[in-house]
């Protein structure tokens, strides 16, 4: 049982290893679900009875990148907090997404466990409050 079973987090990344690493680091804290592609993630959001509090998506993925995916998901699930996880040092598309309030901020790889934990808990508190 994770420490915060009520905080469900969906992590989207096309690399299985990333999904595994993410799960390994956060499953003790949160209720983690993962998706290997944006399309799977969208399907999962539609089908999931319990909606995630936070969705974190990789940026570079085949077919649809992270920002495109979030744009689509956010139009349907405005109450979820979305974040990008990127291997790039810099990307104008992410900056635009922040300016458009699609995402509050982005994380870089390799990620910092403590930083992400704080942000997730913050987002959860903000949604609840």
């Amino acid at each position, binding site marked *: 049982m994770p420490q915060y079973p009520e905080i469900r987090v969906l992590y989207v990344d096309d690399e299985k*290893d*990333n999904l595994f690493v993410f799960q*390994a680091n956060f499953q003790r804290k949160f209720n983690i679900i993962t998706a290997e592609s944006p399309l799977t993630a969208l399907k999962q959001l539609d089908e999931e009875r319990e909606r995630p509090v936070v969705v974190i998506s990789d940026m570079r993925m085949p077919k649809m990148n992270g920002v495109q995916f979030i744009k689509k998901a956010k139009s349907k699930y405005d109450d979820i907090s979305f974040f990008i996880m990127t*291997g790039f040092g*810099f990307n104008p598309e992410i900056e635009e997404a922040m300016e458009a309030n699609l995402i509050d901020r982005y994380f*870089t*790889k*390799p990620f910092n*466990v403590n930083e992400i934990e704080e942000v997730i808990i913050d987002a959860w508190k903000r949604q609840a409050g």
Partner: protein
Amino acid sequence: MSIAFYNALEYAPEQVEAFSQNLNAVLVVYHVTQKWQQRANTTKLDGRVLTASTRPQQGVYFIPEGYKYQYDGKILTILQEQSLTAEKQLKMLAGSYPQGSITLMDEDLRIIYTAGEGYSDQEVDPEDLIDLSAEKVLMPEVFQPLKQHILALKPGQKQDIDLTLRGKTFQNTCSAVLDVDTRKIYYILRSLDVTAKRFVQLALQESEARYRYMIERSRELICTHEPDGTYKYVSPSATRLVGYTPGELIGRNPYDFFHPDDIEYIRESSHEPSLKGQTDGSIQYRFRRKDGTYIWLDSYTSITKDDTGEVTSILTGSRDITAVKEAELRWKESEQRFRGIADNIPGVIYLCLNDERFSMQYLNQEIKNLSGYEHEDFLSGRVSFIDLYHPEDKPYILAEVEEALMRKEPFHCTYRIKKKGAEGWVWVDEYGQGIYEEGELKYLEGVLLDITERKEAEAKILEREANLEAIIESTNSIIGLFDREQRLVAYNKRFAEVTYQTEKLELYKGIDLIGKLGGSMAGLFEGFQERGLNGEKFNETIEYPTSEGVKYYLCSHNPVFQKGEVTGVSVFVEDVTELRKSQVELERYATKLEQLVSERTKELHAKNTELMAGNRELELTLNELKSAQAQLIQSEKMASLGMLAMGIGHEINNPLNFIKNGCSGLVRELEDLECFDDQAVEPFLEIINDGVDRAAEIVRSLSRFSRQVPSMSETCQLEAIVDNCLVMLHAQIKGRITVEKHYNDHVQLAGNEGKLHQAFLNILSNAVQAIDRNGTISVTIRETEASKEIIFEDDGVGIAPENIDRISDPFFTTKAPGKGIGIGLFITFSIIKEHSGEVEVYSTPGKGAKFVLTFPNQIG
């Protein structure tokens, strides 16, 4: 002297006065109660004051005629042995009001005396009321109004008041009498049940009011007359109808107002018969109003007779029919006008029977011009249209008329008739319709117009059209006419042929040809149509792809005007493919010729230039070329590096993520184990994280370095940029070169971050390479009011004095072949210049080099 006594109570004081004058009588009125003292009223007789007296304690003396009395001037003595008691007198008094009651009251409305049957009707003993206040006796709703009335009376006045009690109406006559001696006022109240009487009166009044109302309000003039006609009564509507008020007419004779032409007529047809009792029917005549104009009246009469059968009164009711009369007159006038018009219009108007010969009932004079016959010829039946119709047209006319009449609709036919004494036929246009009375066809009416001239003109037009069509058909050009909606309304055979050959389309009138074409050609033609519809007349040559190759058509568009409006566009298309081909050929020859001339000229020019240009110019060109080439190489290099950095960033960061967070995940797994030794694991984790962070930092620096943004307005942190460069060069610096940093905190410069990275890296890279083994590189960043400065200093080999001026030239290098192509510092200088900065280079060979970069602060 005769003296009569009257019951004063029955009369008002003024009447009493009158009696006393006329009858020469003395009236003596005594008011009596037991309490009263003997009292005598006096009245005048023949100028003398008489005083009558009574005996004490007696009531009113009521001395009817016949009683004997003595009057000595002061004392009245009744000589009857038995004088009447007051009681008896009142009873007599009451007897004259069999239905009512009499009440006598003093000033305070105290009842002094009562009598009459009225009280017994109420089952009250009048005696019981004596000495009681009227207020106590009477119902309040009766007493209050009575009191009000009575107290308002002045002596000698009498007033009637109706009071209602228990559904009955009582007429109360109140009078006030003054006792001249005591100056006291007494009130006499007579009360009579007048319920039935009032009811009848009211009904009568109402019916009279109704009757009056009707007469007064009637729009008709209602009058009564003497048998000779003199007005006796005239209703108020007279003022409105004839302008005279009833007062002005009453007493006058209506004959004074009749129109002179109508007087005899009225007398004979209305007045005299009505005196004989014949009053049926009305009469219409003119009546002169007060303003002198005449009004048409329609009057009926009735009479009243007395018992002997003599006519006593004539009653007349009259209404204004001027409007009707005028309409009648107007109708007569318009009938006359119609005849006038009918005979003057340029067409035949007829009215005929729907029989076999269309027997004419009416024809205007124009028939003579149309048919050559007089209109009497038709009216008398000597001539009929049946005889004049063209044999070919006759069945059509009869059928047309018959069919229209069956449907009760107007008919229209155009046919020929034979005109008397003329050659050829006259064309007639006929518009007619049946006239029905109560659904029965009675007549035919209509108009016949001579349209021979129009028909001839039409024939000419047809002929002209046929000629035109022949011309259009005979040409080899495409001719078409489109209407405003792009529909093809007319076209020649050639058009149909070409369309079928090229588009496999069968033409027909009204086809949306452009719509059927589709594709780019449709757009082109639509544009042409629009220009044509806007009134533009133009020629355009178009290329038209067909299965037989591209055809060239010269399209002439002409707007078709009708009454100043564009109603369509005519299109005239010529196949100019052959013409075009020869044109193109010609053009090609011309172009070739031009080219040849131009080439020759160029060659000559080039030779000239070659000869004329000196070595310096050649060098300059070469330098420019070099500079361009260098920049080209650099931007190409940077672009590739950018792509590479991006790819590397993602590809390296992901595995770094596996390593770093794989470890941290692993540690979390291990934490669950009992034998987990926190302290033993910690150093491992640290070095892993340190390694990963360093690798990530390199990737990050690389990505900043190779950033490809055209902007010159980024906020660039100079220290961060220098640090990034040092990270890049870390491998070459590590272990042999000491880097000294002299930073002023957070010096910022507006510019392009990526380019500054390149510029600084080139300088630092040269410095690293200038240091053979061990050495020091110092970087100073500082800001003054005027400028920002970065100083790179090394203790390497330095630059030879003869080379210092050339280090910024492109492709100048002192490095061995393959170690560099000599564009690094050229690019650096370019970038610094782009940032409005300056580079100063100081060097002592063998001691090192110093690059001072100065960026002046923007003023303002």
